């Protein structure tokens, strides 16, 4: 299996009339791990949300293609069924819906009618993946994200990723709010996904996640654009020297957009 390709072309996105993304270009192939880094407020999360179709974000120009299909014309559920996944920075809490019922609906939504996952197989899969993520088993029966700690929410996002097995995943600041032990556990889960077909876009503010998940490519976003791309060495230099050298190199004034 060669995997899928996600192409982002000249993407412009607004929130409430304010332009946040000003022409983003990126291509992620199956089997590749990309990291998008950058200071706060440069549009990293906006990129993730716009690709998935968050109702607050309006795409004003550009394209997002998954294997040549226009993602932006799809409903949110169609995007997911086409193979996209977004691990969210702030997942919704949904009272009264157990984590396990939700997950089963999500998995079955990716399968044909009449080919639903058996309860036994589902429980077995979930149990083993919860073990990998060192999650308490009773989290399966708790209401979706309700009363979860920040760390529990992140693990739960990765649990969904591992259960759904998408073609392309976007991880939006999956490391924020995690202590170092939790970070390692979450990274383990993500690394377990690595294969020739799976493509991943990791959005992070800090280098430290990339100590555990080695990206093939690193991109730096500033002021709503990808301003620099390179290999893993780029993230190490950012960790050591910060972002100022890039700003100087590119002559960027110190101003950020609010997002």
């Amino acid at each position: 299996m060669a995997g899928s390709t996600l192409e982002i072309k000249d993407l412009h996105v607004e929130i409430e009339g304010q332009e946040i993304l000003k022409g983003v270009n990126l291509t992620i192939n199956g089997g590749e791990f990309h990291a998008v880094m950058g200071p706060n407020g440069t549009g990293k999360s906006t990129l993730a949300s716009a690709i998935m179709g968050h109702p607050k974000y309006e795409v004003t120009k550009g394209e997002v293609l998954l294997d040549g299909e226009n993602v932006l014309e799809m409903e949110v559920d169609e995007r997911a069924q086409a193979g996209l996944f977004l691990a969210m920075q702030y997942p919704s809490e949904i009272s009264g819906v157990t984590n396990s019922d939700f997950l089963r609906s999500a998995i079955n939504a990716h399968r044909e009618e009449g080919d639903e996952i058996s309860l036994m197989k589902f429980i077995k899969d979930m149990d083993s993946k919860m073990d990998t993520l060192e999650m308490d088993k009773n989290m399966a029966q708790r209401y979706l994200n309700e009363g979860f700690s920040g760390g529990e929410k992140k693990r739960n996002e990765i649990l969904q990723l591992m259960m759904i097995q998408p073609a392309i995943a976007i991880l939006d600041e999956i490391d924020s709010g995690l202590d170092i032990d939790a970070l390692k556990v979450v990274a383990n889960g993500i690394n377990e996904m690595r294969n020739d077909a799976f493509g991943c876009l990791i959005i992070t503010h800090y280098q430290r996640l990339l100590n555990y998940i080695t990206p093939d490519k690193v991109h730096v976003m500033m002021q709503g654009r990808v301003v620099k791309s390179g290999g893993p060495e780029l993230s190490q230099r950012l960790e050591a020297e910060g972002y100022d050298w890039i700003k100087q190199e590119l002559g960027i004034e110190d101003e950020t957009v609010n997002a």
Partner: protein
Amino acid sequence: MTVEVSLPYDKEYVTQFSQGQQEPEWMKKLRLSALEKSESLPLPKPDKTNISKWNFTEFDHHVTSDRIESLEELPVEIKDFLDEEKEQQNLVIQRNHTVAYGSIDQKLKDQGVIFTDIATALREHSDLVEKYYMNDAVHVDEHRLTALHAALMNGGIFLYVPKNVQIEEPIQAIFWQEDPKASLINHILVVAEENSSVTYVENYISHNKEEKTSANIVTEVIAKDGAKVSFGAVDNFEAGTTVYTNRRGVAYRDSVIEWALGQMNEGNTVSENITHLIGDNSHSNAKTVAIGRGSQKQNFTANITHFGKGSDGYILQHGVMKDKASAIFNGIGKIEHGASKSNAEQESRVLMLSSDARGDANPILLIDEDDVTAGHAASVGRVDPVQLYYLMSRGISKFEAERLIIHGFLAPVVKQLPVEAVKRQLQQVIERKVY
């Protein structure tokens, strides 16, 4: 302005009915005096809902029905309420105004538990019923509907749990208005003596979409010191039945009354659920879920009134409104002077599925004591688009995502119902009503 309501049933009728049922003298007297009062007392005035034109008086009062020999004979829509996996030992099925089926575990009987229809209870346990019947909880002269209820009461249950008896298995009652015009004027009386505990669950069901009738239901739950009563219900009268239902609890020292009410009627409904926390450290948890559809009008009041010190009350009301339905949810936490260290919490939320529907959540805290805690949360709104987005981002269709959110919203009551079949049945009713 007083509304002219001529009762279809007079003194002679009530006297004859009482005698025909071989009721004790006190009951006949109570009925006759209530009948007289019902002529002059006004209708209740639920906040923001005008019920002056609702049908509370047109119905057939006494419809007798055959007993059934075995549960196999029940039609499937009634059988749905029963757990198939295990035999329900403690069950009464009331068909129209008479008992069709009744059973109680011999072991409970030996312990002195009484679980029987109200008519039998009046004949066999007259003194015990008299002690509690419309005395501590609901009063005859509150308004026309309580008086009418007392005058014409024609069905219901008496459940009595003696001191220190803990009943593990749930007790179930099914009230089946089979006849489209039969009026269930049911009286449910639950008395839990000191340090006893019981779980009771009831279902109301009818199928009269067109034919008009009225139900007037009064429920009294008395929890003595240290007793625990869990009360579950699924009300599912069809559109032809106008419903007045009044469920009231009185909780004494260290006692607990829990309500889990699935109020799923199709017709116009006024529902009161009031709990008096009389004793110190008494506790009540009152949960209601409701759905309105069509052009149905409903008014729900949940009220917990604190008298005892350190008493704890929690109200939850969740309503889903669609089509042109309207509903008012009044949540009242009242702390009387002297009920120090009490806690009154409430949450009322209404989910609107249509722009023509109307829903109001009115949280009210009435506090006459300094040293207390209280809180409320109320909201009326549509399904949260960000929640929908989250579920859909996992491949779940919009329809299914909404379905999950709505079922989740109504889960607090579903989860708490004690009999699996009743739980499942409520889920089915929700499914049917929402889609």
